[in-house]
């Protein structure tokens, strides 16, 4: 039986530069895993490959028994919308849509839209007072909370977060991490989170350290 998420001997080259040099790595269902490392260590690339936003030069990736490398672009998109939730460092929101509409966009691509459900999802991240606001009217922390609501709306199997607190102050960081913590403990979400911040990594159950395209350390966190 293979692990829930498994990548094997993944090599990723961008032209002459090599981002990943044969990484193998597995995550079990319900784990909260932090990937740390300096900038350029290949941690974001690995996350993108797990989420199917990028494809490896060689090696293979599987999630829940599905070989992601075998999927074409549009089947990959379909797989992604049902199984993967994304949170980016920069809260990528569509600038001319309100919070609710941004969440509904994910519903639209997934299946159907349901405004009430989108409102509920925003309420779950404590954003019920900012439903009709556009991203420019929201603070960084609030934008990131909308992103989390959007990532969760389609009940994905895994939440991928790329520096989710990278642009936030300590207070907002704690708030966002608290949210992830709740998801992890109460709803048993599998979370893979990329960060360069030891404090942030400390919240996860497992910390994987990368250096120069290779995993150098993989250990349970102190907490």
């Amino acid at each position, binding site marked *: 039986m293979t692990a829930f998420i498994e990548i094997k001997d993944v090599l990723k080259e961008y032209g002459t530069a090599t981002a990943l040099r044969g990484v193998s790595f597995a995550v079990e269902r319900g784990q909260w895993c932090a990937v740390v490392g300096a900038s350029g260590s290949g941690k*974001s*690339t690995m996350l*993108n490959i797990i*989420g199917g*936003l*990028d494809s490896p030069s060689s090696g293979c990736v599987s999630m829940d028994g599905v070989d992601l490398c075998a999927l074409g*672009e*549009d089947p990959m*998109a*379909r797989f*992604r*919308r*049902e199984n993967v939730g*994304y949170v*980016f*460092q*920069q809260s*990528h*929101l*569509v*600038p*001319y*849509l309100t919070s609710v*509409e941004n969440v*509904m*966009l*994910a519903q*639209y*691509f*997934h299946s*159907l*839209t*349901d*405004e*009430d459900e989108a409102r509920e999802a925003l309420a779950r991240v404590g954003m019920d007072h900012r439903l009709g606001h*556009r991203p420019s009217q929201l603070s960084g922390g609030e934008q990131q909370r909308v992103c989390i609501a*959007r990532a969760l709306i*389609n009940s994905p199997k895994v939440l991928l977060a790329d520096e989710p607190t990278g642009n936030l102050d300590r207070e907002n960081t704690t708030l966002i991490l608290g949210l992830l913590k709740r998801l992890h403990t109460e709803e048993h979400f599998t979370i893979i989170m990329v960060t360069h911040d030891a404090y942030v990594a400390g919240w996860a159950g497992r910390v994987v350290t990368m250096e120069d395209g290779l995993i150098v350390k993989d250990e349970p966190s102190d907490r």
Partner: protein
Amino acid sequence: MVSRRQWFMRFLLRSLTQRVGRVAVATFSVTIAVAIVVSALGLSRGIRDKLGHELKAYGANIIVTSPAGLDQREAEEALSTMPGVDEFTFQLYGSVMAGSAGSAVSAVSEVAAIELIGMDIDESKGWKLAGRLPLKGAGEALVGSDVQAALNLELGGALELEGEKFSLVGFVERGGPEDGAVMLWLPDAQVLLERPGTVSAALVRAEPGGLEEVVGGIRRALSVAEVKTLRQVARAEEIFLGKIELLMGLVSIVVLLAASISLSSTMSATVLERLKEIGLMKAIGGTRRGIGVFFVSEGTAIGVMGGVAGYLLGVLAAMAVSKGAFGSIIIVPAVLLPLGVALGVVISVVASLVPLLGALRCKPSVILRGE
């Protein structure tokens, strides 16, 4: 619960209303392109109406004209004694300044240059007539339906031509040149145009079998005149029209090309600007088709708006040009509205499709990395 389609429309509306500047620029490009094509088509159609059918419905088969005008008495003598001639009638053409006078609100509400036809108005010639025919020498005028609409005239009102008042007793509609003209009895027209005893043309009906002989006879009798059978006139008009339409067609094609190029660069800029959005949509599970539909719909909406605006602008332009060039107003047919809209949609969608397809090919990880 919001249905998928309603959501789609909401998204489209947001994207159009929240990015007014960009949308306006793109719409404007479409507008200009459509306007120029519509006015070119409208003008060539209008010119065809002006030239074609000028005389066909009068039952004449020979037309006698002279650039300087014909002497009415001389022509009358020649034609009445000519064998083979069944009937003939004289007409005098000119252009006058007209205004609707004495209307309740303002004395002279509108003034426009209008075509004038002086003729014998003793039978309705199959016209669709509202009111009655003017009586000879009573200072009464008959007005074509286009003029009526353009000047907003009413039956029983007065029309001021070069300062003289005529009472309006009837309106006619025939789908021919009379629709855009004012008709007076020949003597009235001669006085008004200050050309007494002169006519522009004699319309002659001769036995169809011996047309060539009659033409020869008239040529000999009236040496200054140009005598043509209606077929020759029709043929010359066809050739002339063909040339004009070719020219208009070429101009339209060039304009369309230029507009498409400028539009496609505008659209490229918009798509590039929204590359992040596209990457994001891909990341949250949008397929290429699903995302493409948004942008193509947006292009369609811009095309429709630009098409409608372009049609209106084109109509105004055609009116202005025709007023300057022909001294009368050409009405652009409404058929060009759907045509203009279709044209707008096509150029707008094609222009946005090229950069869009490129953008859809990009990997989301590459687009979203920019930090």
